[in-house]
């Protein structure tokens, strides 16, 4: 058995495999399949200050090797989640991160302050990259000044681990990553979804109620890998990589490109057992190639 543990700052993760926000609920739906406590971490659904109904149906379109979603941050609001949902899932023996979303800097700050009260929550993932909301969301993640402003404001009120989740819909991902690092982020996670669109040619209508939505799944993997590699070469803080991971080989590619941990998203929909399989597959790879610890292959790409 290889050593699968990774560390971000002083926080230990039992393995590098975590679940991506918005694709794993709060873990409870997976209890029938396996104990979510075996994961390196769980990133729960995007949480906002007020409860949100999300966008109108239809919110989903299948695309070649991927899907578009336009959920629009449907969630019950931070208070409900901290009071009702979190107490139910905190039994899982893993790191639970709250994915924090907002349409104003103040909202991000208030939500974070509330989470800051609960010391058993090790960290938050600041979502400045949601393409499916009219205000805020992705807009924060697509310019350096706005990204800097949110990260700075949140850092001021937050003592836990601050991971900032970046949008791939930018000309230069490294400059955004650098300002987040400069403003005190403890880590960077990427990528959120690529803005895309699907059309029903027979009906001559967009498939999504919102016309555009966020693309995820294997289709985006080449773009995600490239961005992880670029950011790895641009910042010193750890990276959590994601985008189209379907199996252990995909996960290893992200780690080789420079990710310390990975998140699995869309794949959970297709195979609810995918995460345990990936954990096992990473171990097998390390053993086969003679590595003692997964940390040996972080950024170990040779070129």
């Amino acid at each position: 058995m290889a050593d699968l543990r990774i560390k971000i700052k002083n926080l230990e993760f039992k393995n590098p495999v975590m679940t991506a926000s918005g694709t794993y609920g709060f873990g409870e739906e997976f209890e029938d399949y396996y104990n979510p406590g075996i994961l390196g971490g769980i990133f729960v659904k995007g949480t906002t200050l007020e409860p949100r109904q999300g966008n109108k149906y239809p919110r989903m379109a299948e695309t070649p090797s991927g899907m578009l979603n336009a959920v629009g941050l449907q969630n019950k609001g931070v208070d409900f989640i901290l009071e009702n949902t979190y107490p139910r899932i905190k039994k899982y023996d893993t790191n639970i991160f709250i994915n924090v979303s907002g349409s104003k800097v103040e909202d991000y700050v208030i939500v974070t302050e509330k989470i800051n009260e609960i010391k058993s929550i090790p960290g938050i993932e600041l979502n400045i990259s949601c393409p499916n909301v009219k205000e805020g969301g992705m807009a924060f993640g697509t310019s350096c000044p706005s990204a800097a402003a949110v990260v700075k404001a949140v850092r001021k009120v937050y003592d836990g681990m601050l991971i900032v989740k970046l949008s791939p819909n930018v000309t230069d991902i490294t400059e955004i990553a650098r300002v987040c690092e400069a403003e005190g982020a403890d880590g960077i996670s990427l990528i959120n979804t690529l803005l895309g669109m699907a059309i029903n040619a027979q009906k001559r209508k967009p498939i999504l109620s919102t016309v555009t939505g966020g693309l995820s799944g294997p289709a985006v993997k080449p773009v995600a890998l490239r961005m992880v590699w670029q950011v790895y070469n641009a910042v010193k803080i750890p990276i959590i990589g994601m985008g189209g991971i379907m199996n252990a080989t995909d996960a290893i590619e992200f780690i080789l490109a420079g990710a310390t941990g990975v998140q699995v998203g869309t794949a959970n929909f297709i195979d609810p057992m995918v995460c345990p399989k990936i954990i096992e597959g990473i171990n097998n790879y390390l053993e086969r190639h003679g590595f003692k610890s997964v940390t040996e292959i972080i950024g170990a790409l040779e070129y």
Partner: protein
Amino acid sequence: MAKKLVLDFKVSENRRLNSEYVVLTVKTDEEIPSITAGQFAEIKVDGNADVFLRRPFSIQDVDYNNNSLKFLIQSVGKGTETLCNLSVGSTLNILFPLGNRGFSIAPKESRVLLIGGGCGIAPLMLLGKQLLAAGVKPEFLLGARDISALTQTEEYEAIGKTYYTTVDGSKGTKGFVIHHPVLWDESNQFDMIYTCGPDAMMKAVAKYAAKRNIECEASLENTMACGFGVCLCCVTESVKGHVCVCTEGPVFNIKDLKWQISE
């Protein structure tokens, strides 16, 4: 509700009903948990490069002795076409039973009508059988384009009295299900209506039931990415706001839905 499983099945029969429909029977070695009519399964479609996500299908029937399930599949696109052409012996990976709310069983002696159209008739077969077992005599009202699209008629008739409508009048009453006289003969007093089928059909039925204060349950077929409550893509507007069809349904009492009123 039973624990969700993800299991490999083998296709033990692929019965073609017509150019559009097949009935797939699939078997596994494991024990099948108890299924409530209305529950569904997410089937992984292999061998088609254009299919990425699983596809949801109602469980039309279950045989606990043989560990087998039956699906009625209508070929409407890439995934269903691939499924319709599966040969006996192929492996299918199936996630089931899904849906935390199936049809509720009306009290003994109630008069109930099960209204279905297209592939929406599928869950009504299991419902019919479960009603019978509970001492309720189901009646079916099945609608289709024409006689050739009406399938499995003998199987439904074996469960209960079955009425038909076809758009071209080639069998039963000409028109849509909502035009069938059984709904308009005032001597018929239904206590409960169950429905599954095209949206337009279900909305017409819901309107009819709401007007007469008849209890009515509808099974929705929203497009789904996961089928078990984690993607939040399959929502319908309910009196409580957006709820997931896959976990809060797929069967809803029409009183909890907003759609039938909006029209």
